[in-house]
Structures are given as C-alpha cells and as structure tokens.
C-alpha cells in the first residue's frame, strides 16, 4: 500500500467522548423557548374514505395551539400537499382517503406532548372502509382494489427521470432486462431449477426514532433541525412544497442515533414546518416506537427464480421480483430498478430475463433499508445457487467461484466489472469458516452445518456530492460536507481524507455538520456511497487548497510548486525538508496578513449511460460494485427446529480501508442486523392491522444472538477512481447473511427453507415435512 500518513490508520472517532458521556447533541435534546409538541391521530383502517373530520373540540382544548388536517393543508394558498422522492403520492396528512393503518390524519401542536395527545382524543373522524389489498401477488390481479387512482410524478432525482406515472394499476414501476434467448436455453436445458423465495416487511429500528423540529426565524426563514440522512433533499422538497426559494429554508442535522435508511427523504419535516408556520412558534415532533412501525419499512418481496443448466454450466435464468412498496411508493421504484438489475447475480449466465415490479398495497410504506433491496434478491439467488450446486453434486464454494464474474467481465447489464473482490471475499470467508474441514459430528438431536453465500451490489449512480475545504491561516482546516454522521464514522473518515491530502495533522481538521446554509448539496448519506462520493469531493477540494498553498510557498522560495510536499502542517521541498515553511508563513508570504483563508471546492458526480428501456442494457450502469460474502456455521436442534449460529464471517470489499476499524464495525454491525432479520424479524399483519408493532413483540438481535466467533474480513481491491482507492462498506456485511444461514441449515439437516425469517417453527415444520416424504414419522 502507498505510504500514507493518516489514510489506512485506525484513528479513534472524533465523537467518542461525547458519546460515552451521553453529552452528544441530538434533535431530541433541543428545546428552544416556547417549544410546542406534536401528536398525530392516525388511521385505524388500512383503507377507507374520510367522510368527515370534526376538530372543533380539540382546538378548544387546554394548551392546544393548532390542529391541522390534510384538507387544511390542501387549502393553504401556494402549498403543495403531496410529496415523495419517486412519485408525489404521499399527502402530509391524509386527504379524502387513508391507505394504510397508521397513516397520519390529524396533527395537533400543544404546550406539552400530553396536552397534544389528550386533544387528539377530542377529534372525531368518520371513515367509510374500502376494500383492502395486502398481498403483493393479489395486488397485481386485474380485479384488485386500486390503492392510487392517479400517480403524480415527482422529478426530485435525475436517476428517476425515466419513472413514468403508471396506469390504473397497483404496479407503479416495472424494470425489465432481456439478454440472449432465454426460451431457447430453457428448451435445450438438461435440468431446470425453479424456486420461489419470500422475505417479509421488517423494521429498521434505529434506536433514535424519527424526530424533527422547525421554527420560523426573525427574517421569516424556515429553520429545520432534523434527524435526517438527506438534508439537501429535505430542503429542496420543502421549498417546492411550500413554494419558496431554497434559500428561505435552512436544514441542519446533528448526530443521528442510527439511520439504516429509515431517515431518508421527507418524513416529519413537512408537518413541523407547516405547524411552525401556522403557530409562529417552534414545533417538535418525536415519533414513538409504535409510530415508527407505521412510518417506513423494509420491502417485503416474492422472488421467482428459474434457472437452466446444461452440463455443469448455468445457461439461463429468469427472475420475477415483486416488491411490496406499501401504500406509498417512497423510493420503491429506485430500489426496484437498482436491485432489480442485479437479481440474476454476479454470475456468468448467457441468457437472462428480469422483471422487477414495484407494487402498491395497503401496508405502511416501504423505503430504503440497509442494502437497498439487494439483500432480498441475494437471499433468493444465492439460496438457489446452493440448490443448483447441490443438485449437480458440485461443491457450493467451487461452483460459485467457477461462475463468478471477475475484472473486465460484463455484468448482466453489459457493464464491465472493475475492482470487485468477489472471489477473494468468497475464498477468505470459506477459509475462515473451515470449509474444507470435516463436518462436526452430530450430538444428540443437534446437527451442525456450514453455509456460504456471496453477491454484489451496484452503487447508486448517478448521484452528487459537493464539498468545500477551508484552510485557516493557523493551519487548521474546516471541511463543509452534507454527509450525515449516524454512527458509520464519516465525520472522522472525511477528516482523515482532508488531512491526508492537505498534509495537515488529523486533529487540526474539523468537519462541519450538515447545514444547508453552508454545506453543499449531497444526494443522500446512504447506500455506502459517502466514502467514495463525499470522500472524492473532499479530496478534490483539499487538492485545490493545497495547490494554492503550494503556489504561495513556491513564489516565496522561487521554486516550482511541483517540487513541494506537505506533511504535519508544513510545506517543504521534496528531498530537502529544511527548505520550507509553515502554513502561517505561507499565508504571510501570499497575503501579507493572516486575516484570510484559502478555499477549495470539490464535486463528485459519476454518470451512467441510460439503460435501454426494452433490454435493460447499459455500457455503464453503475460507478462501482460492492462484493460481499458470508460464511457461517450453524447448529440445528432437530427436535425443536432451533437454529444457533456458531461462527460468522462477514467479508466485504472496501476498495481501500481508509479506516480499518470503521470498516470492520460496519461489516459486523450490518451482519448482526441482518442476522436478526434472517432469524426472527418480521412485521406480522392481520387484515391490514399490524400485530407486533412494538419492541415487546418485535425482536431484534441482542448480545446473545451474536456468536462469540463473529469476524469481519476486509478485502481491499482498490478502485481506480476512489479516494485513495476506497469505495464504501456500510451495507456490504448485510447483503449475504440470509442465504448463508439457509444454506448452512440445509447442510446441517437437509431441509431447504425458502422464506425468511428462519424461525424455529418454520424449520421444525420443514423437518417434519421432510420426515414424511422420507417415510419416517
């Protein structure tokens, strides 16, 4: 590895002291004078017409400052009451109709949360229930109840420009890929494997629930403090909804208590902004955990896969993916598109057809979730990889390695693969779990097995990150970036990148928290994109500052700037360290004064070649690839169906690990989260009502669910255009967990389960069914 001074070093987080002392600032601790608190009345019906709302008694209740309905908002002059990143299909508060249980209907702002909640009890709403559609496959039937009669385009993002409003149908987006001749390959196949896999809606569960605060300042500008992963989006969307210029809105984001995709796009911001405008006072809305369950979910899916094999090669694959996006599209179409095109896997298969559908139902809206839909498609295709390998009598690891794409190969979309350490990830994960070691013998009713799975994700492209670096005359620097620190360590990582490029000490670089008045546009803090995109932007900005600095020194020393170098806050002649000066001296040389700054700006904006709408082909559909592999060992109790994970190895390609510690934490953290999703997490609905909408009933992974042997494996295949070769790794550990565990389950007890979560009940059922087939009891 190149000789870097701070890149590649496991420096501690900037925010560690604040976090262990609990002093860290969250939106929840902000209490401007005169603060009002919000409570929201939500729909008890999954689908109904709103016949009448009477809010007069609530308005008269003690401590109540304002009561707002969807009709009130629609009647405000100049206000657009709908929003959404793909379609403007979601009203801030329901208008005429509610489309899922828990949809927001009436909002109250009052002196205290309790006063607001008490006022809600005085609101009367009369509903007329409508037919409900809940199952994603029912929703695409011709006679299904229609969730949205019309779909308004949004236009917020360039990569969704091709998303067209659908017809009168619950399918709001369809992605299609056609490569080769699938029918012919199936006709000529030796064997055909056909499977249906499902994954349920689930929850992000950031420990900090959504919270937003708004006030109108003395100059009439709207100020928002919000726990959001997308401050730039929030500003733009609010400006559009409120009909004001973007610079009349200021969005600031402090530290987040986790995000995982839940806190993207607009959530509570429109409600608090409108209530602040109406009351003239600061307004805060903090969701309860129960409300969190009704706000955003992980997409449930049904994935149908059909694979043709001739000899020992896979010759064709047909993928149909149905995504349950709930009552509002949210970012569903982008997920259906970006994950859709990877749903045949990173394998050499000459003939492929993919159809990926985004489908409305009367459930809470599904949005981005760590992995952006890719965990769902890998769950399917890498379960099937094992089924095929076993069916052919091949070793699952070898079978993957034989079929895996490598450097320069074309992905199914026609885009060449670059810097994708897939094979290395598979090999290292397999070695770590002891793939070649003999299986542990059975003990009593317990059986052990090992499983592997791999897959890739394509980074969201196009997207944009801008950054500004300011060098102060004393050699300290400020980095202006809209990347949100939510636990991933971006703040410290961006400081490492700026410090490396400038040649300044790490502790002299301060990263400014997102503030749309000063930090430039950034698409989102999500999708494992910040290290690459914002990292590149920060590096470019720092390089520009360095150039100015070097020019100043070169002028004074009368040498060529190209012969200069900087380290530890000093600029000097390469090879003659004594000839040089400090930053302060350079400022004096250039400006004759210290009262100034050197400023550089950087912009990272990777582009794509648009996909052919009929074939889905594109010479460049993404900027880079993340490779992931998981290897696990499990123990299954054949009497109870209980599955315990004994070893877990999460491998992922980081490009270059700017900070190895953070990369390891991301791999383990993502894998742990997805272990919960694999083994027990699911939102359970009955007639459209959520049955387990609290943490008493919805279990996530605790310290007891993580095996003592839980190891990250950071693969490093540098990317030619990444900052110091880096890519990103926030989601990589999440991608392949479910399939690896299901594959280990089959290895242990010979049954294949195609639905997650892999609960003891499900495994027990599968074992029972297998015994029946085998003629046992």
């Amino acid at each position: 590895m190149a000789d870097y001074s701070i890149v590649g070093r496991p420096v501690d987080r900037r925010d560690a002291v604040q976090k262990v002392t609990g002093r860290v600032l969250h939106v929840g601790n902000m209490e401007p004078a005169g603060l009002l608190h919000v409570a929201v009345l939500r729909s008890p019906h999954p689908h109904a017409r709103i016949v009448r709302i009477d809010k007069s008694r609530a308005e008269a209740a003690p401590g109540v400052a304002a009561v707002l309905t969807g009709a009130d908002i629609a009647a405000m002059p100049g206000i657009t009451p709908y929003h959404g990143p793909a379609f403007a299909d979601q009203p801030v508060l329901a208008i005429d109709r509610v489309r899922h249980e828990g949809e927001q209907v009436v909002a109250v702002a009052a002196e205290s949360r309790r006063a607001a909640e008490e006022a809600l009890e005085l609101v009367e709403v009369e509903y007329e229930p409508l037919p409900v559609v809940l199952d994603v496959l029912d929703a695409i039937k011709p006679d299904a109840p229609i969730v949205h009669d019309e779909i308004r385009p949004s236009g917020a993002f360039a990569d969704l420009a091709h998303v067209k409003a659908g017809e009168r149908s619950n399918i709001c987006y369809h992605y299609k890929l056609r490569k080769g001749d699938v029918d012919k390959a199936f006709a000529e196949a030796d064997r055909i494997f056909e499977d249906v896999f499902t994954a349920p809606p689930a929850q992000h569960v950031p420990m900090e629930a959504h919270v937003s605060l708004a006030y109108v300042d003395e100059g009439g500008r709207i100020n928002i403090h919000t726990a959001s992963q997308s401050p730039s989006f929030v500003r733009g969307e609010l400006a559009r909804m409120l009909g004001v210029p973007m610079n009349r809105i200021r969005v600031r984001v402090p530290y987040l208590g986790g995000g995982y995709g839940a806190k993207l796009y607009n959530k509570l911001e429109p409600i608090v902004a409108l209530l602040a405008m109406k009351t003239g006072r600061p307004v805060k809305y903090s969701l309860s955990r129960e409300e969190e369950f009704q706000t955003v979910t992980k997409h449930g899916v049904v994935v149908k896969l059909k694979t043709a094999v001739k000899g020992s090669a896979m010759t064709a694959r047909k993928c149909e993916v149905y995504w349950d996006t709930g009552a509002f599209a949210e970012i569903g179409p982008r997920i259906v598109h970006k994950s859709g095109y990877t749903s045949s896997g990173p394998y050499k298969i000459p003939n492929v057809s993919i159809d990926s559908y985004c489908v409305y139902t009367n459930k809470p809206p599904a949005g981005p979730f760590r992995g952006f839909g890719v965990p769902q498609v890998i769950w399917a295709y890498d379960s099937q990889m094992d089924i095929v390998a076993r069916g052919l009598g091949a070793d699952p690891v070898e079978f993957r390695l034989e079929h895996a794409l490598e450097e320069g190969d074309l992905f199914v979309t026609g885009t060449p693969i670059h810097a994708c350490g897939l094979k290395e990830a598979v090999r290292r994960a397999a070695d770590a779990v002891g793939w070649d070691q003999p299986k542990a013998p059975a003990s009593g009713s317990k059986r052990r097995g090992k499983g592997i799975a791999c897959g890739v994700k394509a980074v969201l492209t196009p997207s944009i990150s801008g950054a500004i670096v300011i060098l102060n005359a004393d050699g300290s620097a400020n980095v202006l970036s809209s990347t949100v620190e939510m636990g991933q360590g971006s703040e410290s990582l961006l400081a490492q990148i700026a410090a490396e490029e400038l040649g300044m000490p790490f502790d002299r670089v301060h990263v400014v928290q997102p503030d749309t008045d000063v930090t430039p546009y950034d698409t989102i803090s999500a999708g494992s994109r910040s290290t690459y995109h914002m990292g590149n932007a920060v590096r470019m900005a720092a390089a520009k500052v360095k150039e100015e600095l070097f020019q100043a020194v070169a002028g004074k020393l009368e040498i060529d700037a190209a012969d200069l170098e900087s380290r530890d806050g000093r600029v000097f002649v390469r090879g003659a360290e004594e000839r040089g000066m400090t930053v302060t001296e350079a400022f004096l040389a250039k400006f004759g004064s210290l009262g100034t700054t050197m400023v550089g700006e950087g912009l990272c904006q990777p582009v794509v070649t648009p996909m052919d709408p009929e074939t889905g082909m594109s010479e460049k559909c993404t900027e880079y690839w993340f490779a992931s592999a998981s290897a696990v060992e499990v123990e299954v109790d054949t009497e109870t169906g209980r599955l315990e994970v004994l070893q877990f190895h999460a491998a992922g390609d980081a490009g270059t690990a700017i900070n190895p510690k953070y990369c390891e934490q991301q791999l383990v953290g993502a894998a742990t989260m997805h272990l919960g999703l694999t083994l027990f997490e699911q939102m359970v609905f009955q007639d459209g009502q959520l049955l387990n909408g609290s943490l008493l009933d919805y279990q996530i992974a605790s310290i007891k669910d993580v095996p003592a042997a839980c190891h990250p494996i950071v693969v490093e295949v540098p990317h030619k255009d990444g900052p110091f070769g880096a890519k990103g790794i926030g989601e990589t550990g999440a991608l392949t967990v479910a399939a690896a565990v299901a594959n280990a389950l089959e290895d242990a007890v010979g049954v294949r389960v195609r639905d997650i979560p892999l609960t003891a009940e499900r495994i027990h059922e599968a074992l029972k069914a297998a015994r029946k087939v085998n003629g046992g009891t």
Partner: protein
Amino acid sequence: MERNISLTVNGRQRELEVNDADTLLEVLRDGLKLWSVREACGVGACGSCTVLLDGRPVSACFLLAARLDGRSVETVEGLAGDDALHPIQQAFLENDAAQCGYCTPGFIMAAKALLEEHGDPTDDQIRDYLSGNLCRCGGYPNIMRAVRAAAARTSDR
C-alpha cells in the same frame, strides 16, 4: 394529580413536583435535562433508558416517578469527573464500543451494575446481564471487549 417527591439524582437531592402519570424518564429528561437517558421503545424492552435506582439497573421509561419518593437515581451524567472519564466510559471509548452512541449510556449503566455485582464476570454473565440492552448498530463484540476491559481495570484497583 401533581405531588411532591424527593429524589437523589447523581448524588444531589432534588425536590420535584411530578404528575402521577410521569415516568422517571420524563422527569429526568424533560424536568432535569439529563439527555443521556433516552427513550427508544417506551415499554421496557430495549435498555436505552437504563439508569441505576438505588444501584440496580432499571428502565426509566417503565417506572412512575411518583412512586420513587426518597430513592436515589444515577445516570451517565453522574459518572465522569471534571477531567477524567469513569473507567467504564474509558473502556467503551478505547474499545470503540459506541458507533451512533444512542444506546451507549444505557449499556454503560448496565455494565456498572454488572461490575458492582460481579467484579470479574464471565462472558456468559456479561451476555446475560446486557441482553436487555439493544444496539442496532450491532456493536456487541466491541461492547463485550469494553466490559471485559473495564472489569480488568476496576479489579486491578
């Protein structure tokens, strides 16, 4: 109904007026601005709001303040001195046990109670004791290391 209670909070006695419906969490956060005490579930299931009540770890979201007259409460704000972190905080810091850090105060208080009960806990004891605290960032291996390190540090002294 409002009533007056006396509560010792981080060593300082407080006379407080509380409503019968107020939870300890509401009193600590809204009343006393002890922001380390955080709600994440509101039903006693996640450990985010863990504080020590007379030395025992409890979920502040799940206790009514009005019933706590005369009791003593400790939060993370009571741990660090002016210039030094508590050994458990130091161990969490050195072992990178805080990512987003939202769950961290709850874990630290639970760990404090654990180490007061078992000076040199086994890994299983740590797991048992901390199984009521959830970390969605999935930092459990580092939290384990931090608690082991804190145990070594406190038993050394």
